[in-house]
C-alpha cells in the first residue's frame, strides 16, 4: 500500500514537471485597454473677497456652495503631532495640526503663490512700513475678540524673544535687526523694517495666538512656554481661532478636529464655513500602511508614489476616486561633490589631496554630469513618475530659470571633458595626470530603496567612464555627521525640499556661511575668506535678492544663481518626483494646484 502511494506521488510529480517543461507557444494576448476617465475641467474659483456684515469683516469664499456636515478622514505619516503650540512646531505634522487651529495675518495664494491677507483685512506697504488692518468682530473660540493686542503679543513676546521655534525670529531679521512694531489702534499695527526686505511680507504668515490664553505661560519663561499645549492638553481648554478646533487626540492613532462654528470665512450665501463637521487625521506608520488604509476606504485621500500610480490609474475608471496630477514636486534628489580643501585640527586634509584635484576641477564635475543617465533613473526608479532635473530651483518654483534646458546623457561629451581636464583612459581605467587611479566613495543613507537603487545606477554610469566608485549606503545619522561635522566624504546622494515661492529660503545651502553649504562646508565662525569666485557671486545674489521687493527685479538675480550652479556643478541634480494624488469623488470643492497640493482649502471642502 505504502509503496503504491509513493509510486503515485512520484509519477504525479514527474508529470507536473513534464507539463511545466512542455509549454506551447501561443501568442500572449495583452489586452490592456487604455481607457482613462474623462477629465473634469477644474474651474478655479476667484480669490476670496472681504465682506462686512453687521460690523464683522468676513472673508467670502468664491467657491461653489456646498452641503454642511459630514467628515473627512485623511492621514499623516509618522508619529503624530508633538505639540499643538503653533509657536513651537519643529516638524511638519505638528505645524499642519497647529495650522488648522491658528491663522496667520497673511497666507499664500494657492494658485499664484503671491501673498494675500487672511486674518488681516489688508496690508498696506509704503517703503519699509507694513500697515496691517485687522478684521473687526472676529472672535476666538471662547468669544473674545481678536484685536491688535493679540498681534502685538504674538510678535513682541513670542517671536522677537525667540520663544518656541527660534527660526521664526531669524527669518524676521533684516541684516540682523528685528523690525519695529507699533500699535496704531485696536485693529491696526505697523511693522517697520530697517531696510527693504522682500521675504518679509511672507513672514507675516506666522500664526497669531490669543494673548489672554498664552500670556500666563509665556510670563513664566521659555521652558514653561515650550511645554505649553502638549498633545495631552485637554481639548476643551484650548482657545483657538482657526477653521477647526481640536476635539480629540489619541496618541499614535488619530487627531480629530471639529468645526469652529464662529469662523470668519463665509460662502456665497453668507453662511459660515467650514462645511465639514469633523476632520480626522489618522496617524499611519509608513506609506505602505497608508495605501492599505486607502484600499480599506478608511481614508479619503492618498499621495501616490512611483509604481503605485499605475495601479491606481488602471483602477480609476471603475472606482470611487479621482487621480490628480499636480506636476513636479518641490523635492529634489541630487549628487553632491565635496569641494572642501581645508584641513582639520591635526592639519590632516578632510579630503585626500589627489581627490581634491579632481573634485575642484570643473571639467571633472561636468563629465560626471554628462555621464549620468537621468532618463533611466526616471523610468526605472521613479516608474516614470518624475522629471529629470537640472536646476537648483524645483520645477514648480515661480523663480525657475526656464533657459536651463538640460542635456541628455552623453558619454562622448563626458570623455572629452575628462581629456580636457588631463585625465587619461588606459584599458578602460581612468588615471589622473599624475598617474593615480580615479577612485572615490559614494555615500547615501541606507534603508531607502530609492536612493540605494540610485546609487547603484550612478556607480554604473561613472564606471562607464573608467572611474572606480565604492558605493556605501550608511546609516542616516552617520551620513549627516559626515556632511556637517567630519567632512570626510567624497560624493553623496541626498534629497532636499525647497520652497517653490521663496528662493531666499535656500540661503542656508547656497551662501558660503550657510549651515547646509554641504559641498564646501565651513566651520561656524570661520574667518578666512577662501571662497571661490562663484561662491562670492552667490553670496552677493542672495544678499541683494532679499532686498529687492518686486518679482520682476528679483527674477534675473535668481536666474543667475541657477545658471551659476548649473555651470559650476557643485551639486548635480537628478530628478524631481511628480506629485500624484487620489481623492474620493464624494469630496467636493477640490481645486488642486501645483503650488499648494490637494487639500489646502479644507474650509471650503464639503462631502456629498
Amino acid at each position, binding site marked *: 500500500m505504502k509503496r503504491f502511494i509513493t509510486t503515485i506521488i512520484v509519477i504525479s510529480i514527474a508529470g507536473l514537471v513534464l507539463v511545466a*517543461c*512542455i*509549454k*506551447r*507557444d*501561443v*501568442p*500572449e494576448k*495583452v489586452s*490592456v485597454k*487604455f481607457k*482613462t476617465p474623462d477629465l473634469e475641467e477644474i474651474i478655479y474659483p476667484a480669490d476670496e473677497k472681504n465682506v462686512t456684515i453687521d460690523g464683522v469683516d468676513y472673508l467670502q469664499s468664491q467657491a461653489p456652495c456646498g452641503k454642511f456636515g459630514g467628515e473627512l478622514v485623511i492621514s499623516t505619516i509618522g508619529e503624530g503631532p508633538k505639540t499643538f503650540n503653533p509657536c513651537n512646531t519643529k516638524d511638519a505634522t505638528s505645524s499642519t495640526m497647529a495650522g488648522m487651529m491658528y491663522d496667520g495675518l497673511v497666507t499664500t495664494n494657492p494658485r499664484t503663490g503671491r501673498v494675500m491677507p487672511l486674518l488681516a483685512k489688508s496690508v498696506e506697504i509704503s517703503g519699509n512700513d507694513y500697515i496691517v488692518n485687522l478684521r473687526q468682530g472676529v472672535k476666538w473660540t471662547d468669544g473674545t475678540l481678536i484685536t491688535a493686542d493679540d498681534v502685538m503679543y504674538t510678535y513682541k513676546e513670542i517671536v522677537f524673544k525667540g520663544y518656541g521655534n527660534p527660526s521664526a525670529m531669524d527669518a524676521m531679521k533684516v541684516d540682523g535687526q528685528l523690525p519695529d512694531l507699533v500699535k496704531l489702534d485696536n485693529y491696526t499695527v505697523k511693522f517697520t523694517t530697517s531696510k527693504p526686505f522682500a521675504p518679509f511680507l511672507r513672514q507675516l504668515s506666522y500664526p497669531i495666538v490669543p494673548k489672554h490664553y498664552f500670556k500666563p505661560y509665556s510670563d513664566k519663561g521659555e521652558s514653561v512656554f515650550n511645554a505649553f499645549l502638549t498633545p495631552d492638553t485637554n481639548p476643551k481648554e484650548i482657545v483657538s481661532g482657526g477653521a477647526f478646533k481640536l476635539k480629540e487626540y489619541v496618541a499614535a492613532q488619530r487627531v480629530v478636529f471639529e468645526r469652529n462654528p464662529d469662523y470668519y470665512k463665509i460662502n456665497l450665501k453668507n453662511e459660515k464655513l467650514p462645511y465639514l463637521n469633523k476632520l480626522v487625521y489618522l496617524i499611519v506608520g509608513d506609506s*505602505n500602511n497608508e*495605501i*492599505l488604509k486607502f484600499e480599506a476606504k478608511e481614508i479619503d485621500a492618498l499621495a501616490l508614489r*512611483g*509604481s*503605485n*500610480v*499605475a*495601479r491606481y*490609474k*488602471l483602477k480609476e475608471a471603475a472606482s470611487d476616486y479621482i487621480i490628480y496630477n499636480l506636476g513636479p514636486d518641490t523635492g529634489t534628489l541630487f549628487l553632491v561633490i565635496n569641494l572642501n580643501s581645508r584641513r582639520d585640527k591635526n592639519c590632516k586634509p578632510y579630503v585626500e589631496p589627489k581627490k581634491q584635484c579632481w573634485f575642484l576641477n570643473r571639467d571633472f564635475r561636468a563629465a560626471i554630469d554628462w555621464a549620468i*543617465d537621468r532618463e*533611466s533613473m526616471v*523610468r*526605472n*526608479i521613479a*516608474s*516614470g*513618475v518624475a522629471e529629470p532635473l537640472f536646476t537648483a530651483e524645483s520645477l514648480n518654483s515661480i523663480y525657475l530659470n526656464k533657459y536651463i534646458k538640460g542635456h541628455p546623457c552623453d558619454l562622448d561629451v563626458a570623455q572629452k571633458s575628462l581629456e580636457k581636464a588631463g585625465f587619461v583612459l588606459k584599458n578602460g581605467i581612468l588615471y589622473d595626470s599624475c598617474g593615480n587611479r580615479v577612485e572615490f*566613495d559614494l*555615500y547615501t543613507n*541606507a*534603508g*531607502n*530603496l530609492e536612493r*540605494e*537603487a540610485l*546609487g*547603484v*545606477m550612478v*556607480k*554604473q554610469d561613472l564606471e562607464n567612464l573608467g572611474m572606480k566608485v*565604492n*558605493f*556605501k*549606503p*550608511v*546609516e542616516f*545619522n*552617520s551620513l549627516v555627521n*559626515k556632511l556637517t561635522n567630519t567632512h*570626510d*566624504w567624497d560624493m553623496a546622494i541626498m534629497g532636499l525640499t525647497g520652497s517653490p515661492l521663496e528662493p531666499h529660503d535656500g540661503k542656508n545651502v547656497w551662501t558660503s556661511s550657510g549651515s547646509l553649504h554641504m559641498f564646501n562646508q565651513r566651520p561656524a565662525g570661520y574667518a578666512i575668506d577662501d571662497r571661490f569666485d562663484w561662491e562670492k557671486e552667490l553670496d552677493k545674489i542672495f544678499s541683494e535678492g532679499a532686498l529687492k521687493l518686486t518679482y520682476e527685479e528679483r527674477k534675473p538675480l535668481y536666474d543667475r544663481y541657477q545658471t551659476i550652479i548649473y555651470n559650476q556643478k557643485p551639486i548635480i541634480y537628478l530628478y524631481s518626483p511628480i506629485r*500624484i494624488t487620489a481623492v474620493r469623488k464624494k469630496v467636493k470643492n477640490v481645486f488642486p494646484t501645483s503650488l499648494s497640493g490637494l487639500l489646502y482649502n479644507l474650509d471650503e471642502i464639503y462631502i456629498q
Partner: protein
Amino acid sequence: MSNIIEKIFEDKFAKIAFLTLLFLYTVILFANFIAPYSNTYSNRDMSYAPPSKIYTIDESGRLSWPYTYNYIREYEPSLMQTVYKQDRSKKYYIKLLTNGHLLSVENGGRLYLLGTDINGRDVFSRLLYGGRISMTVGFLALLIVFPIGLLYGGISGYFGGIVDTLMMRFAEAVMAIPSFYLLIILAAILPGGMTSVQRFALIVVILALIGWAGFARVVRGMVLSIKNEEFVLAEKTIGASDLRIILKHILPQTTSYVIIAMTLSVPSYILAESGLSFLGLGIQQPDASWGNMLKEAQEFTNILYRPWLLTPGLLIFTAVLSFNLLGDSIRDILDPKSQKRT
C-alpha cells in the same frame, strides 16, 4: 561520522533536508557556472522585467528545442504605466554549456529565469551569488561561538567553586547586553572605509562575541556532571594537567550536544542576516544577499505585480527549515536517551 550520515538517510525528513542543503550548497559553490549572468550584469532598459517564458512546442504545435522571446518595454504616459510585451519577431534558442555557463541563450537574447529587479539585474543569478553570503555567514559565527563557549564552560564547570561563580556571573552579564541596540549603535560608529562584506563580517563577529554565553552555560552544566565520572578521577590520579583533562577527556564527551547546537544555530544566523539587511544594517547594495534582495519585495505593488521578487524569501524559508529538520534528527540519532521519532 559516516555512521551519522547513514542514520540521517534512514529518516525520511532528515534525508530530504540533508539533500536540499547539499543541493543549495552545491549550487552556490558553482554559482559562476550555473548563473546565466555575472555578478555585475545589469540592463537598465529591463527594470522589473517579468520572468522569460520558455517554450518547447512552437506555434505550429511541433516539439522544438526550448526557446524564448525577448521583452520590449513600453511606457503608457496616460496611465503612467510600464508594460512589458513579448517581441515575437525573433526566437532565441536556449544553449547549454557555452562560454562557461550552464544555461545561456543565443546572442541578442535575454534569459531571465526569475525576472529582474529595479536596476534590471537578473534575480536568478543574484540569488545564487547572494546565497554565498547568506548561507555561509552562520559558519563564521560558529567558528567564534563554539571554541569560546566550550573552553569557557569547560573551565568554569571543571574548577567549580569561586571560579565557577565568577565566570558564570560574567557570562550572565554578557547575555544581558541588548544585541539589537548594540547593532544600531555599531552601524553608526563603524568606520566608513570598509566594504559592506567586511562591515557585515564584523557585525557577525560582534554578535558572536556576545552570543557564546548561553552555549557556555550549557557546556558548564554538562561538565559539572562529567567531572565526577570515574575516568576523570583516573586521569587525575595519574597526574594529568587540568587543561589536558578538560580538553582531551571532558569536552569530547559533549560532542553530541555541540553538533546538535551547531546545526540548530546556523539557521538563526541566516535569519539574522536577512533581518539586518532588511533593516539596512547588513549587506548593502550593490552586493547581493537574500536579505537585501527581499527588501525590494517590501513595497506593496511589488508583492502584487512582481511576485518573483519574493523568491529570496522562499529560499530563506527552505534553508532554515532544512537546517532545523536536520538538527532535530541529528539530536535523535546522537542522544540515546531521547525517544526516536516514530
